[in-house]
């Protein structure tokens, strides 16, 4: 991260350049960031502009249109991929206690991790499913619009330096075994048990522009909606509502909510703190 601060007195020009750039990215490449939160997008674009030693966002737009490799950089900037295993252990504990008993009543389960980034969340939940004896009857979809992070997710290899923290998280999440049962450490890398991947499909899916691809029992989409404005949040929540079976569950990030959204009335609150909701059976 750069230490320099970007100064632009006339914000209206910057705003205009930003809108034009996002329009250009959408029209030329189909990636739609027009309804992402502006403050975040502006920061990241200005950061890339400075890194490339450009003078304005208009220049950055020119580069993006004529050099696809610059688009790749910008996509990376705009898709924040920071994640961890069992992020917010209480969320997983609540899934284990309040959602798993109900999922257990289905003979077959489809689970969708939307915006899975490098996959830590997916392996975390796959372990939980194994421990609860539900893995064998589950089909797991792990999607993101960033194909680079999906490649990492498919490998299931994470730095050993993180394992200590992940082990604590795993225990706080109600883990029933020794966390080391699920990976083998080699030098500085921890390879997660390839068996965990057996029922996982990793696939490119853009929440803004793609549609529903399966009927699901549980959708986990954490720390993705925080980047979207209300219009886009509603659109994506409607997509989830369409995909979920009646009685299916939706788990969001700790700072995300369906309250005040257009699907609010379609859901019951399972756990208000952990942002777990259940689609009404009606």
């Amino acid at each position: 991260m750069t230490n320099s601060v970007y100064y632009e007195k006339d914000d209206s020009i910057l705003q205009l350049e930003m809108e034009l750039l996002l329009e250009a990215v959408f029209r030329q490449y189909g990636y739609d960031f027009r309804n992402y939160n502006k403050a975040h997008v502006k920061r990241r674009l200005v950061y890339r502009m400075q890194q490339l030693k450009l003078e304005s966002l208009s220049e950055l737009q020119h580069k993006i249109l004529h050099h696809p490799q610059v688009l790749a950089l910008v996509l990376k900037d705009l898709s924040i991929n920071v994640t961890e295993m069992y992020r917010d252990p209480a969320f997983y504990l609540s899934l284990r206690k309040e959602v798993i008993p109900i999922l257990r009543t289905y003979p077959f389960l489809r689970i969708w991790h939307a915006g899975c980034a490098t996959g830590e969340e997916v392996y975390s939940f796959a372990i939980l499913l194994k421990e609860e004896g539900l893995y064998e009857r589950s089909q797991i979809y792990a999607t993101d619009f960033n194909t680079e992070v999906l490649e990492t997710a498919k490998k299931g290899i994470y730095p050993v330096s993180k394992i200590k923290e992940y082990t604590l998280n795993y225990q706080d999440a109600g883990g029933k075994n020794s966390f080391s049962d699920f990976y083998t450490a080699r030098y500085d890398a921890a390879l997660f048990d390839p068996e965990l991947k057996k029922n996982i499909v990793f696939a490119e899916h853009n929440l803004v522009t793609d549609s529903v691809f399966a009927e699901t029992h549980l959708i986990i989409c954490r720390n993705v909606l925080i980047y979207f404005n209300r219009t886009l949040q509603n659109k994506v929540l409607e997509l989830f509502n369409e995909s979920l079976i009646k009685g299916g569950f939706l788990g969001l990030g700790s700072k995300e909510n369906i309250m005040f959204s257009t699907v609010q009335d379609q859901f019951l609150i399972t756990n208000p703190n952990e942002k777990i909701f259940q689609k009404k059976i009606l």
Partner: protein
Amino acid sequence: MQAFEAIVIGSSAGGLHALKTLIKGLKPGFDIPIIIAQHLSPHSENYMAHFLDQLNTIKVKEADEREKILAGHAYIAPPNFHLLIENDRTFSLTVEEKVNYARPSIDILFETAAEVFREKLIGIILTGANHDGANGIRKIRFFGGFTIAQNPSSAESDTMPKAAIQTGSILKTMELEEIAVFLNSLLN
């Protein structure tokens, strides 16, 4: 005098105590919105908001995404998220990498607030053991906002106020109690 529309405060080590003194010193009915980035351990609950909420009429709460910034409120950045101000004066959150080893980052809050509130913003740097907030203070000054640092010699940890002062962009250095008196004087 220009009417200030928001106050941003950055604090780190020793911050809870400093924030308590500062907020306690504000007059009942103090209504300029206050937005705080305090470095916390990622696993801490929002007890800080509850604690600071007891002190006077100011309603202290954790900032929620898309929440509108209101008079008479103080907002605290949630632990483990960066807090940003949008042009429509609402909050947004991100989980991107730590900046200066910190999330929330004081710089990110100050820089985005400066772009929105411009000369109608006050930025205050309190106690802390790192350099977070110095870039933000520069940006607030660039847009004509008012900048204050806690007096380093009485701050629990002097690195952060010193770093802010070294930017040359701090207008006033004051004791915590003086900052409260100064802010009170801006009312009416």
